[in-house]
């Protein structure tokens, strides 16, 4: 409380504001907490809260309206609790009910305009459950759904737009299907018929790109709308009997059925605009079914509406609590109705569904792994078994002995062991892996120095290498290194032309080999070396060939230590010794073809693309900030009417012009990077396809499957950036003449936002 010597009146109003804030906070807390574990029953808590809110309506109506709209939007896992609350309030205060419905419609329109389609679904669902609470009249809800499904008749709009309106309709039906059908069966049948005909005619080109498993056994990977349609069909056939959803309003039926209902105002879906961005289609990930956990409750079938509702609610819980891993785990394991369903299986399936979601998981990978650890801590007797049942190491490891080391299973194990080694150390892996499997162990991550032993005496540049080593150890300067390197002959040229700073692979070789070898002790040592001799690096790597050769030599030195390769590439890009395009070209070069399918290569490529993307964003931000600064300056000038600030404008305008150029140059570099990558993919894939055709062999080798999916991965992981290049890609690279295998990937990608 701020003490001040102001008048009593000021003090009073200040106190009232802080009291009001306290009450508003208290209201927010009451509303958020209802439904959580409590000594009293949910019904009595709801009734009590309805009483409190009703009493506060005169003073806090707009705050209460805002709070209830917000929980409708942000706490969908507690949907029916809040609709019941609104129902009780409407029964006590008809006008409030009407204002709430209006507020919800306003919020729905705003969400759609702001491309918040996921939140909009929750709002639509909330409105439909309000029919069950006698707040909204069923016929007006049916009318809204009629308008939704009529979007399927719109022409020249993206399919994803039509999809969303169908999804919003279908996904509300588990809650309100029964009531709507009872009141308006003829209209509902008509809407269903329209929905069915739309689902039959819509394109499904995008599906293969989004599926996690390639086979349909034992768990089919269904397109999300197909799956939901099947679930709703089954629900309809079961006469809309749905027993999973918690419906607190049933206990209040006698009160609620006395309430007067409101009609939803006619709702026209906002038209499609250029700025509209609709959610991407999804494939439903499944890894469990009724055969899992034979001792516990049976898992609802994949086409049961219970499965849909459970998964929705679990996804919502993760969405609400992702920042608080302990709370998230606690909320997941205390999901109501957990005695009737194999909850741990559902939780694990939902978590992996998010982890494997394409194009990208909703949250960072490490959140999910840590969440699984928290869940195992909460349920040590039951959860770890669920995870390991489907655990990747359950498959027959003996397969790995008989198969070629490059085939998928052994390769997978090798990559996992390599990752384990990064988190521990080489000897540990050797110790824990049984001797029969030692072929799967990673190489000892040591440095390979070609000038190190006696046999290297005859190698060209050997004496210079020794000289350099001495110089490095005596803390030589860049200039001293330059002078040692000056006399290295250029194997590519007959006569040295200029000062000798053109591309000289031998110079690069002796310098990079020797320096990296001396700095091999740790990452810090290597980074230090790169920093100290940055000048030499920049000069040697000035040309594109130079950059490529630096990467080549670095790879030769560190080929046993992929982690070191990755961090060195990262540092070299950040210190501008090499650029992103050089890294891309290096990855597709023949020197890396043997390692092309290894994980570290793709880690490096994606990390490189991400750096490029972040760089563009950073400069765009600088430009925006400079423009805003100028705008503020202009405004101040017009306020002050000070003509002398013309000069100040000049410097800022110059800065803006420079930044504009910088942005354009960065965006151009970014586009070029993607074009290089796509071009190289097309080249190697075409080469393979042509060779197979001439040889008459099958195209689908493990290498090919790996490569084509790596291409898919580029599209999916960076889809937002790549969307900008669609026209160029279509006209320049992914043309009709391309082999259909490769073109299919591009077409599937286009289908994601079509």
């Amino acid at each position, binding site marked *: 409380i701020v003490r001040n010597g102001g008048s009593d009146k000021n003090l009073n109003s200040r106190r009232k504001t802080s009291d009001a804030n306290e009450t508003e*906070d208290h209201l*927010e*807390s009451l509303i*958020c*907490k209802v439904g959580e574990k409590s000594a009293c029953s949910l019904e009595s808590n709801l009734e009590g809260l309805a009483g409190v809110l009703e009493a506060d309506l005169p003073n806090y109506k707009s705050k209460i309206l*805002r*709070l209830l*709209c*917000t*929980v409708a*939007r*942000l*706490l969908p896992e507690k949907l029916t609790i809040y609709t019941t609350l609104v129902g009780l309030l409407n029964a006590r205060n008809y006008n409030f009910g009407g204002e709430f419905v209006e*507020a919800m419609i*306003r*919020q729905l329109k*705003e*969400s759609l305009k*702001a491309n918040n389609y996921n939140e909009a679904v929750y709002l639509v669902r909330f409105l439909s459950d309000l029919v069950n609470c006698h707040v909204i009249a069923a016929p007006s809800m049916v009318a809204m759904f009629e308008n939704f499904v009529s979007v399927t008749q719109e022409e020249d709009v993206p399919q994803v737009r039509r999809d969303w309106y169908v999804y919003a309709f279908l996904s509300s039906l588990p809650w309100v299907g029964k009531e709507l059908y009872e009141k308006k069966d003829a209209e509902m049948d008509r809407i269903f018929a329209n929905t069915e005909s739309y689902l039959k005619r819509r394109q499904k080109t995008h599906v293969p790109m989004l599926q996690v498993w390639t086979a349909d056994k034992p768990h089919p990977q269904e397109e999300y709308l197909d799956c939901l349609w099947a679930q709703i069909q089954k629900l309809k056939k079961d006469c809309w009997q749905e027993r999973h959803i918690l419906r607190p309003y049933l206990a209040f039926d006698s009160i609620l059925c006395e309430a007067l209902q409101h009609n939803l105002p006619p709702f026209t879906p906002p038209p499609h605009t250029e700025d509209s961005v609709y959610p991407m289609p999804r494939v439903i990930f499944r890894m469990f079914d009724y055969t899992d956990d034979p001792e516990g409750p049976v898992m609802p079938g994949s086409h049961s509406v219970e499965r849909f509702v459970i998964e929705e609610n679990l996804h919502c819980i993760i969405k*609400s*609590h992702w*920042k*608080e*891993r302990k*709370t998230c785990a606690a909320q997941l394991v205390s999901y109501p109705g957990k005695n009737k369903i194999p909850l741990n299986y559902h939780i694990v399936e939902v978590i992996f569904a998010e982890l494997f979601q394409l194009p990208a998981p909703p949250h*960072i*990978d*490490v*959140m999910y*792994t*840590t969440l699984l*650890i928290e869940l195992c801590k909460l349920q040590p007797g039951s959860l770890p078994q669920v995870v390991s049942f489907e655990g990747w190491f359950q498959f027959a490891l003996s397969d790995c002995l008989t198969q070629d080391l490059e085939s998928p299973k052994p390769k997978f194990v090798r990559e996992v062991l390599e990752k384990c080694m*990064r*988190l*521990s*150390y080489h000897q540990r892996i050797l110790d824990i892996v049984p001797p029969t499997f030692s072929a799967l162990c990673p190489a000892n991550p040591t440095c390979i120095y070609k000038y190190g032993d006696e046999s290297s005496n005859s190698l060209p540049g050997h004496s210079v290498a020794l000289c350099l080593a001495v110089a490095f150890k005596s803390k030589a300067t860049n200039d001293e290194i330059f002078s040692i390197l000056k006399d290295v002959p250029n194997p590519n040229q007959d006569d040295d032309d200029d000062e000798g700073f053109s591309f000289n692979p031998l110079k690069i070789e002796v310098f990079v080999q020797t320096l990296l070898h001396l700095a091999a002790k*740790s*990452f*810090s040592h290597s980074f230090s070396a790169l920093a100290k001799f940055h000048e030499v690096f920049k000069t040697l790597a000035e040309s594109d060939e130079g950059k490529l050769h630096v990467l080549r030599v670095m790879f030769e030195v560190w080929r046993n230590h992929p*982690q*070191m390769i990755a*961090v060195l590439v*990262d540092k070299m890009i950040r210190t501008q010794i090499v650029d992103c395009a050089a890294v891309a070209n290096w990855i597709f070069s023949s020197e890396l073809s043997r390692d092309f399918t290894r994980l570290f290569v793709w880690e490096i490529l994606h*990390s490189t693309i*991400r*750096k490029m993307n972040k760089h563009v964003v950073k400069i765009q931000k600088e430009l925006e900030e400079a423009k805003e600064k100028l705008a503020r300056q202009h405004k101040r000038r017009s306020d002050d009417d000070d003509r002398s600030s013309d000069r100040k404008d000049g410097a800022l305008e110059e800065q803006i012009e420079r930044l504009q150029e910088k942005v354009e140059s960065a965006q151009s570099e970014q586009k070029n990077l993607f074009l290089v990558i796509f071009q190289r993919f097309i080249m190697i894939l075409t080469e393979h396809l042509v060779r197979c055709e001439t040889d008459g062999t099958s195209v689908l080798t493990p290498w090919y499957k790996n490569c084509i999916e790596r291409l898919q991965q580029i599209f999916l992981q960076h889809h937002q950036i790549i969307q900008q290049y669609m026209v160029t890609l279509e006209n320049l690279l992914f043309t009709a003449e391309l082999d259909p295998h490769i073109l299919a990937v591009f077409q599937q990608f286009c289908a994601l936002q079509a």
Partner: protein
Amino acid sequence: MSGGLLKALRSDSYVELSQYRDQHFRVRRAGPREGQALGQNAEERFALVSLCRLAFCLGDNEEQEKLLKKSCTLYVGNLSFYTTEEQIYELFSKSGDIKKIIMGLDKVKKTACGFCFVEYYSRADAENAMRYINGTRLDDRIIRTDWDAGFKEGRQYGRGRSGGQVRDEYRQDYDAGRGGYGKLAQKQ
């Protein structure tokens, strides 16, 4: 009308500052010599200097908190002496690109003494490390992360009397990954 996030959903407790403040943290400023110059006599000057020192201490705390709230650097504790920079890189890269790792060293032996600093390029990546890597295992030890106001030369050394960390001076238990018994217990 869309409104902001609810307080309940804004909870981000893993990212909050802990109680720990580096007692060696100082803002660089001119010493309280002005206080010494002023004042009629030694007593008055002493009072003024003490007041300055108190004000600076509060200012240091305030400044440290400000830095902690926007820091991209984490202190990582309870590491094994044998945990390498490479292992730390691998684990902490899971929440984002690492700018720099500085291994904590024994001031006398100049060997690893069980802590380090991890600096990220972005605050968001550091926050994810606090949310998801803090309290998990590395080298089979539960590691702890905390916000750090930023590396300064000298802070890479342990502050214990024997050269390692203070906690290894006084602990009574045997910890194979941290040099066995605590230094005091070893001397007994």
